[in-house]
């Protein structure tokens, strides 16, 4: 198990290096000059000489290999460069806003898992009954309705019922946990609806599949309590594919809530993405992509390790 984990950890490095390289070059293919855009926005008319001067100051006139080397050398030290717009460290900028995104992702995940596990399990156990059909209808809805639109509905419903929106400036989780969670509850629900639908459907079908397996029949033939048959013999096997889905969705939430963050006006990574693209902030964009990609890779690693603890066949393959 230790060896498995160590090996998976070592594999993370080349993956991240490849991502970094890809991001660096992709961002530079995007048309438009960020410096010119910025200066035009700030001062109106600018001469090419002024732009060149500014570009040189920001290091954008260095040959590409040099820029690349600077970028790559900075990475291991956690240096993602300086934002072209705010001229503050990209790392600090992201660090200041990623916590809210992670918090929202975690909140949505916990909420979804809490809702989806019982629903998916019960739907599988009561397959073909009205209860199963009801859950399947609800979850189909979750897949079909876009999260941001559902979020907008939520906001309108809140306005209609409570008459006001949750405060926009979010209190820190540790300062005022309740207020903080109340603020995040609505976006978490709006994202979680789809998320829990995905998990519940996955869980339902994998439980049904597992319950038809020969070893479930063996467990019953041993005279075990039905509860033991389902939880110990069934669920553990059924969890395997579900864990993957939960992990992938969670990773997606960290960087992927671009629209939902707009709708609920949350100052997270998603909104940052929009701003970075809007202002053509190359370094910020590459930093963001890299951070999101890293969290994706790390979450996948965690899923793999969890998978190996659940399934001995994977553990022993290596």
């Amino acid at each position: 198990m230790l060896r498995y984990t160590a090996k998976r950890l070592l594999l993370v490095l080349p993956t991240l290096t490849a991502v970094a390289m890809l991001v660096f070059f992709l961002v530079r293919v995007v048309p438009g000059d960020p410096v010119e855009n910025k200066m035009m926005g700030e001062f109106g008319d600018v001469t090419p000489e002024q732009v060149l001067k500014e570009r040189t100051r920001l290091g954008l006139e260095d040959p590409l290999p040099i820029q690349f080397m600077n970028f790559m050398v900075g990475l291991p030290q956690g240096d993602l460069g300086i934002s072209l717009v705010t001229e503050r460290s990209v790392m600090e900028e992201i660090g200041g806003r990623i916590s809210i995104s992670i918090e929202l992702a975690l909140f949505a995940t916990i909420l979804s898992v809490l809702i989806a596990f019982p629903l998916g399990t019960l739907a599988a156990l009561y397959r073909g009954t009205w209860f199963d059909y009801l859950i399947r209808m609800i979850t189909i809805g979750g897949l079909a309705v876009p999260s941001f639109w559902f979020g907008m509905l939520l906001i309108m419903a809140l306005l209609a019922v409570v008459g006001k929106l949750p405060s926009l400036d979010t209190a820190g989780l540790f300062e005022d946990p309740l207020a903080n969670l109340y603020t995040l509850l609505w976006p978490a629900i709006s994202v979680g609806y789809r998320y829990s639908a995905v998990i519940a459907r996955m869980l339902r079908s994998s439980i049904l599949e597992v319950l038809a397996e020969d070893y479930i029949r063996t467990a019953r033939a041993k005279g075990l309590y039905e509860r033991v048959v389902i939880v110990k013999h069934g669920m553990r096997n059924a969890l395997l594919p579900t864990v993957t889905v939960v992990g992938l969705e969670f990773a997606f939430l960290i960087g992927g809530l671009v629209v939902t963050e707009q709708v609920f006006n949350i100052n997270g990574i998603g909104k940052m993405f929009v701003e970075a693209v809007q202002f053509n902030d190359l370094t910020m964009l590459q930093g963001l992509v890299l951070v999101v990609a890293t969290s994706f890779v790390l979450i996948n690693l965690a899923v793999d390790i969890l998978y190996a603890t659940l399934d001995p066949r994977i553990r022993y393959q290596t």
Partner: protein
Amino acid sequence: MNKHKNDKTDVLLEVEELEVEFTTGVGTVRAVDKTSFKVHKGEFLAIVGESGCGKSVTALSLMRLLPKKIATVKANKIIFDGLDLSTLPESEMRTIRGRHMSMIFQEPMTSLNPVLTIGDQLTEPLITHLNMSQKEAEIRAIELLSMVGIPDPERRITQYPHQFSGGMRQRAMIAIGLSCEPKLIIADEPTTALDVTIQAQILELLKDISDRLGIAVVLITHNLGVVAAYADRVNVMYAARIIERGTSTNIFATPAHPYTVGLMRSVPRLDKPRVGRLATIEGMPPNLLDPPVGCRFRERCPIAESRCKETPPTIPASNSSPEHTVSCWKSEFVNTNAATLYGVETATETEKAAHGDKVLLRVKGLKQYFKISLREGFRSHDVDIRAVDDMSFEVREGETVGLVGESGCGKTSAGRAILHLNTPTGGKIEFDGNLLNGGNIAAVRRDMQVIFQDPFSSLNPRMKVGQILEEPVKVHKLREGKKARLDRVAELLTQVGLYPYMADRYPHELSGGQRQRVGIARALALEPRMIICDEPVSALDVSVQAQIINLLEDLQSTLGIAYVFIAHDLAVVRHISHRVIVMYLGKVMEVGAGNALYENPQHPYTRALLDAAPVPDPEIEQNRKRTILEGDIPSPLNPPSGCVFSTRCPIATKECSDVVPPLDEFAPGHTVACIQIKAN
């Protein structure tokens, strides 16, 4: 412990009018129809029949393991050890399952939970039923594992099922079934998925446990040899009903139902030379959605008459013990005419019809290695799996060469290498004097065809039978024009015993036997001179298996096709082959003409194989002393040095693990790869 053996007259289980119905999308299927039977304490009862006859459903319904949503079980009574199971609430039924009545399933590969350790799965029933503590249960689990012959049980209980071989898993299953010392163990085809030498180990173990502990065993099987070798009494099932029952001797010596007779006549005998064509029961078992009225066998019965439209009563079979009963109007006639019921055996035809002299296929030093990479820590290195290693043989025109051996012996790899479905690693393959290579194989494929094992997955489900058969004719431009091709399709279908109208059917609309006929027709479409048959009958029921074997032989005699017949069933290979090649772990062990090889086997592996396979004759089986090979087939990743069989060989010496034995001539046409035999 012998006292158990003597009281096999006390009734342990009495089932009266058991009825199981399944609700399906197309109607209600009565899978078990008013079946009554008894199991005595400590006895070994076999329920025998072909697939779909209701034997497994009977077992599962006794354990109440059928899915409640689709299965309805009714019975007048199911008295088990004084308790009526038919009225028992589920909560009490649970305390019977695994405690007093346990079950062993067919597939050891899938019947154990992959994510729980063997120890965990073995201690569960002990903790649940016997209120043992975890510690006590573990001690008992170790005892049980060593009782079923698993070495190093202390380590084994911490392992997972995937670390066990198939035979070991089935032993673990038996240990689970045995754990609470039940009164009855139901074994549902416990050895069907296992190799013949492993089958012998498992069945001996079951028999031994039954004798020692006085546990009754209900063995569900389709294998008549297994029945003859192990069962005290036999119930024969056909189309949801028990049609004949009696002691093993009753059933085999004086069968009274035409189906029982047909079943026995349609399996080739391992211990006897061939007696001409196999007897076949024509047609297929009835569809239980709409079973025929009266005797359900009547449509396939060679002696059916108008009286058979009424359901025959269960009556004592004549000239037999009172235990022997049968459901047939004409049982007396059957009893006295059993030998001629399915045609007279032409006992003179002990050898196969002669074949041509011209060598069609010459294989020399064939090697088929598969590279796999093994990881050790962070490094990986490539290892060759020698699936086939230095194999040489010839096939003459119109000859059948049998290729026999257990799983992993390389027989299928050899077939695929000859066809260049996998490119051989080394050696020469000549077909009709032409050396085959990647370049000219396409031209030769017309002459060299293949029939696959699984008629269910080897036909494209989205193509109609007609399209499947027309395609090769079209590709190889054997007939010009649609009309000519369709005529050829009709001709092919007739040739394999199907009807031309079946060209419009999809494969799923056909039965297994019919599909295998389509597979044969597809091979025939190109008018080949040789067909490689890879386990062509192993997925089929015995009565259908006989039809296909006869068809292959008929085609050989009319078209002069040569066969390479790959199979694990020794009796079938003996019946159909002129010559037989025995393989083990990629190496040829022995080659000989069919009868010579079977009557005078030389190689210790061939002997062990023949010894392990039971024959359908209780008298022979009772007097037979088995030497059963111990252990599993070694991993081909790490084959033993010298003779690959040396690790399991009863006569191996130190020299055997040093020297790779050459294939030496023992008698004309009979070669053996064993240095011990050479020394004699």
